[in-house]
């Protein structure tokens, strides 16, 4: 994925309410993750959809892992992406960020960086204006490094 400066600005502008959480004590349980997901979807079961989550296969630096999301959408008043939430299921607090969009956003595309405490699944959930939810998940490996031939 080739992110341009324009994309980055779009993301910054869209991400008016991006919430970041630093590393704290214990790791999140699956329960915490499901609760965050449920609070977001209001209990609706997310399906598959035109949502792309881009993460590295292996993190180069666990303290700053690039993550970007893209939802294919006409982004009209009637049919647009309202928000995309990113969750990290193995972090002390699973919420990474929520990006909010409107029909004025042009495209539903955003990127940021997150800290990953260990190898884990990163989950993105998109909320559509018609009430549908899409979900996708990528595994990101956090490794000790070294010893490469």
């Amino acid at each position, binding site marked *: *994925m080739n992110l341009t400066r324009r994309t*980055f600005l779009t993301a910054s502008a869209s991400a008016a309410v991006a919430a970041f959480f630093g590393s704290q004590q214990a790791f999140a349980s699956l329960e915490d993750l499901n609760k965050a997901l449920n609070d977001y979807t209001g209990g609706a079961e997310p399906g598959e959809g035109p949502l792309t989550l881009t993460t590295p*296969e292996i993190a*180069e630096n666990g303290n700053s892992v690039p993550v970007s999301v893209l939802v294919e959408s006409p982004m009209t008043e009637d049919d647009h992406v309202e928000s995309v939430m990113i969750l990290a299921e193995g972090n002390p607090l699973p919420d990474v960020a929520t990006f909010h969009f409107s029909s004025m956003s042009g495209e539903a595309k955003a990127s940021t960086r997150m800290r990953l405490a260990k190898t884990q699944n990163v989950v993105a959930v998109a909320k559509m204006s018609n009430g549908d939810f899409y979900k996708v998940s990528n595994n990101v490996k956090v*490794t000790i490094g070294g010893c490469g*031939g």
Partner: protein
Amino acid sequence: MHTRRDFLQFAAVAACLNGVAGFSPRASAQQQLTQDDLLAFNAKGKLTLLHLTDLHAQLKPLYFRPPSENIGVGDYAGIPPHLVGEDFLKHFGLERGSALAYAHTMVDYVDMARAYGRLGGLDRTATLVNAIRAERGDSNVLLLDGGDTWQGSYTALKTNAQDMVDCMALLKPAAMVGHWEFTLGTDRVEEIIDSLDYPFLASNIVDNDWEEPVFESTSIVQAGDTTVAIIGQAMPYTPIANPRWMFPQWSFGLRLEALQANVDAAREQGAEVVVLLSHNGFDVDRKLASEVSGIDVILTGHTHDAIPQAINVGNTLILASGSHGKYLGRVDLEVKNGKVTDHSSNLIPVFSDVIEPDKQMADKINEVRAPYQPELDRVIGKTDSLLYRRGNFNGTWDDLICQGMMEERDAELSFSPGFRWGTTLLPGDNITIDDLYTQTAMSYPQVYRLEFTGERIKEILEDVCDNLFNPDPFFQQGGDMVRVGGMGYSCAPEAAMGSRINNMTLLATGEPIDPNKSYVVAGWASVNEDVEGPAIYDLMENYIGKQDIIKVEPNQSVKFTG
């Protein structure tokens, strides 16, 4: 593949191994082998791609023992390149004792090495390249450098790779890619690239601030009447396998979306043939070939695999041309109406004794080595044992290095990284500074001395093991298992991460490694910044100098469980 040439070589060498009196094995083996034999090729079409990869700065002919283990996991088990020894011979129909059996396997290695001599030498490679250019027409031949070219020797270390840059320039490559190149640091890499007459390509490196491409991804060239796109792929995990602080602004990764976009763009610009010049490693490229469409040929490097002919994955050919200058890879393509319609491929083993060195290259090699010649030739010891590096779990060179680190740094255990570069010495050989640096020459050579708990040691081993044996090739980084001195363990490659490494035992006492106890560990090539300690090459020069003669017993301390 079974040619008359192989049969003749087999007959000759079989005779000498049986000890016919008054018969020089070296002379007899080589009487059967000529430069013309090596160049014999079933030419197709007009376009020829030549692939030289993972040279690791080896300008002179060398011995390089192929591995005894090269385990593949999951869908990749038991298929090339995960075949060694007799299995390799059987799969490719090679006769034991033939020249190709010697080049590709460790079967009868020492006898074969004495019979057939050294492989490689960039002056020999230059002769082959020139001959093929003369045969096919200069403009129809593209020579591509797969990277790991600028690191791995005393002179490359001392000249910051200028020796390699100057020698490679004579071969006139059409493009190159990188991996160990980046361990020269950002400034030097940029300085060299500015001086090159050919592009340094990377479709998969972006800058850390804006995620914009750092290097050109693609070079579109006219080769005769064929338009060829060359797309470059750097080693995707360079910032993980090597010190990220040496090139902090650059982010790597596989970046398949970018690659697909670059392939599509090349086709739109009229490329009839799309070549991926890759430092991904073989299994990564095998999987990549089924996920990215529109690539005709992948010239793959990094994992140092040598496969006699290209392998087909769908409509993509993958050629793996070995390492250390042992082979020159060749692919001929017939192109009609903008499509590849036929092909032929081969790895040409560079038998140094039967190829006339190219004078211009030989002179240049002598010139770059001359200022260092007395030091290169300085003998620091002698070995009674075969010293080699390759193998999934250990090799005798690393056994020696592990022992040296424990003794010189007074450590209970030692770690030596699972590098795949480094040449081979035969029993009875002197060990020179030149030889030592083929195992150790790199830009972060400090030998640390730290305390690790047993639990941490297990974590490190599991982590490295997963880099090697993850069933998904996209998570493999391409080296071998970290070598461990002072400790035995068992390894189950097919098991899940976290449960592959078992039975960790302190060899000195026979006691199990205690997860809660701390052990003093010496190791080298840490990817961390500000590591303190002597350089591995200085430490090993001291250690080897203290031994009367080097003897390395077979290593029984790692048990491989299926």
